[in-house]
Structures are given as structure tokens and as C-alpha cells.
């Protein structure tokens, strides 16, 4: 990653399937990954549902795109920050989220978790450290 790489934050605040925001965000992340920026994903409010495990979409006739989050490590996107308060308000815990990992190139390809649950104050700080914020 070059010295002048900008810090991009994708803020995800909507549940999947009810609106197109979650899928659009994921597609922009995938396309944007080609530009070698420093990418962070934030999941808060209903956006935490994007990472819920056990999504079964056959009944609603839509493609289940939740497995695609697990591919993002291949695109050097491995910072998924999930807000603890948003989980708690919705009766969710970290165990309700799917497991997402990446292989750390600088650590002999060790497999590491991509998801980090942070509290609201930490989320505020993460937001305040970005060059560009894209909201979905």
C-alpha cells in the first residue's frame, strides 16, 4: 500500500434485502478495492444485520450475498468494525455474526479474524480518523 493511500470508510447502516443499500455498498467496496486505498468497513444501526449468520434468501427470491463478505480478505479489506451498542439494541451478540477471516501476508499468511466489535466511543474515533466517508 503506497504512502499516499487515503483512508476510506464505508458506513453501513441498513439491513440487507429490504433496500438496495447493503448490496450497493458491497459492490462499491469490491470495485474500490482495485484502487489500493486503506479501506475500513463500519457496521452500525440495522447495518449489523448485514453480517448476521444463517441468512437464507431462497424464500424471498433474492441472491444471498452474505458469503461475499468472506471474500473481502482476498481484496485486502479486513477491518470490519461492528458497533456493540447497535448489536445490543437489536438483541444480537457477536456470536450471531458470521465468521470472517483474512490471511495476514506479513505474518506468514496466518488466518486472523476480520470482525472487531467496538463500542460507540471507539466507532466515533474511527470515523474521525478517515479521509473519505462513504455512507450507505
Amino acid at each position, binding site marked *: 500500500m503506497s504512502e499516499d493511500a487515503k483512508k476510506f470508510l464505508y458506513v453501513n447502516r441498513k439491513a440487507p434485502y429490504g433496500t438496495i443499500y447493503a448490496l450497493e455498498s458491497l459492490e462499491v467496496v*469490491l470495485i474500490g478495492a*482495485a484502487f489500493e486505498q486503506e479501506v475500513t468497513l463500519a457496521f452500525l444501526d440495522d447495518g449489523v444485520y448485514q453480517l448476521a449468520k444463517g441468512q437464507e434468501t431462497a424464500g424471498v427470491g433474492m441472491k444471498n*450475498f452474505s*458469503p461475499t463478505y*468472506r*471474500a473481502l480478505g*482476498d*481484496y485486502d479489506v479486513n477491518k470490519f468494525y461492528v458497533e456493540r451498542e447497535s448489536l445490543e439494541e437489536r438483541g444480537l451478540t457477536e456470536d450471531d455474526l458470521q465468521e470472517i477471516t483474512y490471511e495476514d501476508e506479513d505474518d506468514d499468511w496466518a488466518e486472523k479474524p476480520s470482525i472487531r466489535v467496538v463500542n460507540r466511543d471507539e466507532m466515533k474515533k474511527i470515523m474521525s480518523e478517515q479521509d473519505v466517508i462513504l455512507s450507505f
Partner: protein
Amino acid sequence: MGYQFNGQDIAHDEEGYLTDLSVWNPQLAELIAKDENIEMTPEHWEVVNFLREYYDEYQIAPAIRVLTKALKKTMGPEKASNKYLYELFPYGPAKQACKIAGLPKPTGCV
């Protein structure tokens, strides 16, 4: 629009990508390849099979750099270059190999 296969008309879009991914089979892949002027070799199949497995697991076709990185790991560095992939699929590995693999056109594809 469709491929003529075993007396059936298999629908594809205006660029030749299958409309229904579930109708794919290896013989149909050979037919699509022929349409692209590609003679399938074991090396072609390595790439096509990798793409299918990746799609099955993640529901997307990988970007080219992801593809080369993965090939490097599983098949060795000599097969992990754009040059090698373009020799196999002259009109772009993502574009042609995905079409032969029966996958949708990749997001932001080459």
C-alpha cells in the same frame, strides 16, 4: 439468443454469459469456449474450475489480482501472472474464463 446444445437452446445474454447458471456443465463449457475460439486444455480447466469453486464459496467471480494470487498459492508462481492468464484467455481472463465457467460477468471486470 442461445447456445445450441444437445438439441436444446441454452439462453445467454447479449454478451454470451449464461442466463441461468444452473444449466452449466463441462460439455457446455467446451461449446462456449469454441464460440470464443478457445481450445480447452487442462490449463484452461484449472482456471475455469478455480473460478467455479470461488463463485460457489463467495457468490462472486474474483478480481484478476485475486485470481493470480490464488493461482500462485495453489499452482505455483509460473502460473500466477497476467501474461500466463492472457495466453490462455486472450480477450481477458475474467471476461472469457467467467463466460466459459458459466458465471455472470464479474463486477469491475477486465
